[in-house]
C-alpha cells in the first residue's frame, strides 16, 4: 500500500520533470502586442495589413512605445504570417483593441477579415471595436501618434467617447459584428472614421447589407438612428436651426439632448392579408434644451410650438434616414428576423433583398421638452 503510494508519487514526479516541455508556455514579457490592426484591399487585390505593435517599456517608469508595420498577403492569416517575417519577436493579437477595415475591402465583404479573428481561441472578441475607415484604413493607423497618445489607444478612447455621446451605439465589437453577419434577418451599422485636415474624425456610420458595405449616414443622422433603433448612449445631442413665425417669432439655433430620459419606442411590424409588410415606428423622445442662440426668451408658452417644430423636423430626418437604409438594403431594425420568427411561411416565399427596398415605413418622432435646463 505504502510502496504503491510512493511509486505513484515517484511516477508523478518523473512525469512532471521529464514532461515539463511547457508546450503552451507563452511568457508575457516576450509578447509583442498588436494593439490596433487595419485591413485594406491593396491595388493588386491582396489583403494589406497594417499593425500597430506595442513594444514593452524598458523599465516600469517609462511607458511602452509603438511601431507601425505593413504587410500583404492573400488572406488575413497569410498577411499576418508575412508580418511576422517583418517584425521582431512574437506578434500576438491577444489583447488588441481596434480592428479597422478600409472602404474598398468592406465593400467586398467583412467575412474574410472577421472569421479568423472570431474563431481563433486566443483572440479576444468581446472588447475590440470594429470600425470602417473612409478610404484606406492603413492611413489612420499610420499616423502612429496623435498628440502624445499612441494611435490604437487614441482610436479606442475616441470610439468609446463617441459611443457615450450616442453617435454609435451599441458598441460594435468583433463578436457582435460576426454574429450580425451570420444573422440572415438583421443587418448592422459600424462606426465610420476618416481623416480630415490631418485629424481623425468621426464621419457617421457605415451601413451594411449582410456583410457588404453599402452606404453611409453622417453623424447627425447616426445620432437619431441610434435612438430609432431603440438604443441610447449617455447623450444624444443635436443642434438644429429653429425658425417659427406663428404665433410667436422664434428664431435661432437650438441644441438639445434626447438621451436624458429613455425614449418610448413603438415598433410594430404589420403583415397584411396579401402578404404585404409594413412597419410602424413611433418614437417619443424627451428633450432637454441645452442651448439657444436666439434673442427670444424660451417661455413656457412657446415651448409647445418648439416641440411641434422639432417633431416635424426630426420626423422628416427620420424619413430620409429610412430611405437611405432602404437604398443600402440595410435591415438594421431586424424586420426580416421578426418575419423569420413569427411569419416563417411568409418569409420562405419572399425575396427579402428586393422587398426590403420597397418596404413601407411609417415613422413619426415626437419631441417633448421636459426641461429647459439653465435657459429659463
Amino acid at each position, binding site marked *: 500500500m505504502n510502496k504503491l503510494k510512493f511509486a505513484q508519487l515517484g511516477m*508523478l514526479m518523473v*512525469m512532471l520533470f521529464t*514532461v515539463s516541455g511547457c*508546450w*503552451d508556455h507563452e511568457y508575457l514579457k516576450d509578447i509583442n502586442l498588436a494593439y490596433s490592426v487595419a485591413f485594406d484591399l491593396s491595388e493588386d487585390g491582396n489583403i494589406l495589413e497594417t499593425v500597430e505593435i506595442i513594444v514593452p517599456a524598458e523599465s516600469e517608469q517609462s511607458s511602452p512605445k509603438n511601431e507601425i508595420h505593413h504587410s500583404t498577403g492573400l488572406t488575413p492569416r497569410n498577411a499576418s504570417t508575412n508580418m511576422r517575417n517583418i517584425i521582431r519577436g512574437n506578434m500576438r493579437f491577444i*489583447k488588441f483593441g481596434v480592428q479597422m477595415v478600409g472602404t474598398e475591402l468592406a465593400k467586398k465583404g467583412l467575412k474574410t477579415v472577421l472569421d479568423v479573428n472570431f474563431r481563433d*481561441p*486566443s483572440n*479576444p*472578441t*468581446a*472588447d475590440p471595436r470594429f470600425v470602417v475607415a473612409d478610404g484606406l484604413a492603413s492611413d489612420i493607423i499610420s499616423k502612429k501618434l496623435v498628440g502624445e497618445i499612441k494611435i490604437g489607444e487614441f482610436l479606442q478612447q475616441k470610439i468609446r467617447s463617441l459611443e457615450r455621446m450616442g453617435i454609435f451605439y451599441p458598441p460594435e465589437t468583433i*463578436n*457582435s459584428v460576426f*454574429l450580425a453577419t*451570420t*444573422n*440572415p*434577418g438583421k443587418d448592422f451599422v459600424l462606426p465610420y472614421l476618416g481623416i480630415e485636415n490631418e485629424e481623425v474624425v468621426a464621419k457617421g456610420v457605415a451601413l451594411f447589407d449582410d456583410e457588404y458595405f453599402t452606404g453611409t449616414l453622417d453623424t447627425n443622422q447616426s445620432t437619431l438612428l441610434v435612438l430609432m433603433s431603440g438604443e441610447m448612449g449617455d447623450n444624444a445631442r443635436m443642434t438644429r436651426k429653429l425658425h417659427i413665425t406663428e404665433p410667436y417669432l422664434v428664431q435661432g439655433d437650438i441644441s438639445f439632448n434626447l438621451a436624458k430620459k429613455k425614449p418610448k419606442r413603438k415598433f410594430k411590424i404589420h403583415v397584411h392579408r396579401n402578404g404585404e409588410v409594413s412597419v410602424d415606428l413611433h418614437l417619443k423622445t424627451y428633450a432637454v434644451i441645452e442651448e439657444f442662440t436666439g434673442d427670444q426668451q424660451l417661455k413656457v408658452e412657446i415651448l409647445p410650438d418648439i416641440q411641434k417644430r422639432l417633431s416635424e423636423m426630426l420626423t422628416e430626418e427620420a424619413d430620409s434616414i429610412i430611405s437611405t437604409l432602404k437604398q443600402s438594403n440595410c435591415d438594421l431594425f*431586424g424586420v426580416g*428576423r*421578426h418575419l*423569420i*420568427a*413569427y411569419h*416563417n411561411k411568409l418569409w420562405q416565399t419572399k425575396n427579402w433583398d428586393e422587398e426590403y427596398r420597397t418596404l413601407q415605413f411609417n415613422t413619426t418622432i415626437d419631441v417633448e421638452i421636459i426641461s429647459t435646463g439653465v435657459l429659463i
Partner: protein
Amino acid sequence: MAKMEKTITARQLFFLVIQTQIGVSVLKIPHKVNEIARGGSGISIIIAGLITQALILMMWLLLKKYPGKNLYQILLGMAGPIFGRILIVSYAAHFILLGANIMISATDIIHRWLLVSTPKWVLLALFSYLAYFLAREKLSVLARFDTLACLLFIPLVLFVGYGLNEAHIENMLPLLEQGYFKIFTGAKDVTLAIYGFEILLVVYPFIKADNKQILWSMTAANSFTTFFYLFVVEVCLLAFSHDQLKLMPEPVIYLMKSMNFYIFDRADIVFVPIWSITTICSLVSYVYSAALGFSDIFKKSNHHLFSALSVTISFAIAFVPVTPSAMEKLDKIAEYMAYVFIALIPLVLLLISLISLKKKEGR
C-alpha cells in the same frame, strides 16, 4: 463484493447522479440539438428527460426486486456464472468506452481552446490520473467529492446566465420550424448527453435509504439535469441564431468568450478549467462502475487495482482515434452500446424477473 456496508445517503445519490450525467456534453449539446430540432430544441430536451425518467423507473423496478444486490450480482444470479460474467465484462467494457469517450471529447475541447500545443497524450494522462486518484476510493468519497464539485455549478450557471444579456427572443423562434419528428430525433441525441443515471444499477446496494427515497432522488437528479440542459440550450438559442449555432461546435464557450467582465477579460479561459472538473466527475463514475464490475467477477473486495486497469484501458482507447471520423465512429458505437446496456438488458431482466415471480406465486 465483500464491502457491503451501505455508504451513501439519498442526497449524495442525487449529487452523484447529476455529476455523472452532466459532463462533456453540456458544451456541445446546444450545437447538436440545434442541428436537428432548431427552435424546438428545448422540447427535445424535455422529451429526452421524460424518456430517461421512464428508464430510471424501469431500473428502479428491477433493482427493487433484488434488495442488496446491484446489477452485476443480479446478472451473476440470473445468467449463471459463465454467461453472467461475460455480461458483466461487456457492461464494464461499456462503461470504459463511455469513459474513453468522455476523455476524448474533453481533451479535444481543451486542446482546441486552452492548451493548443500540449500533446493530447499528456492531457489524457492527466485526466486518467485524476480519474484513478478518485475512482480507487470508496463510494462515499466519490459522493463527497461530487457533492463538493456541485458547488461549481454555481459559477457555471452564472457564467451561462450572463449570456442572457445578449438574448433576443426572435433568435429561437419559430419553435416548431422542423416539425415534431425532427424534435423527437433531436431528443435521441440529447438522451446520449443525459446518460449517467445508469450508475444507479451499480451503486444501488450502497444507498442508505428506502426505495421510495431512492426513486425520489433519482427523479430529482434527472429533473435537475434536464432543466440544466434546458437552461443552457435556451440561453444559447436566445443568444445565437440557428445559422450561428451551426458554425459553433461549442456554443457555450463562444458565449463565454463574448462576455466582458471588468475584473478579468476572457471568461472562457476561466470557464474551461472549471468545467473540466465536472467532466472528471463523470469520468470517475464510469471508471468506478467498471472497476466494481471487475471486482465482482474476480470476487475481490478491493477495487483499487481494477480502477487502475479500467483507467488504463480507457486511456488506451482514447489514445487511438486521431481523426474526426474515427471519433465519430466511437461516438456511434457508444451510442448503440448504450441502447443495449441501458435499455434493452435491464428491460429483459425486468421481464424475466416478473415472469419468474409470477411462476412462484402460481405455485
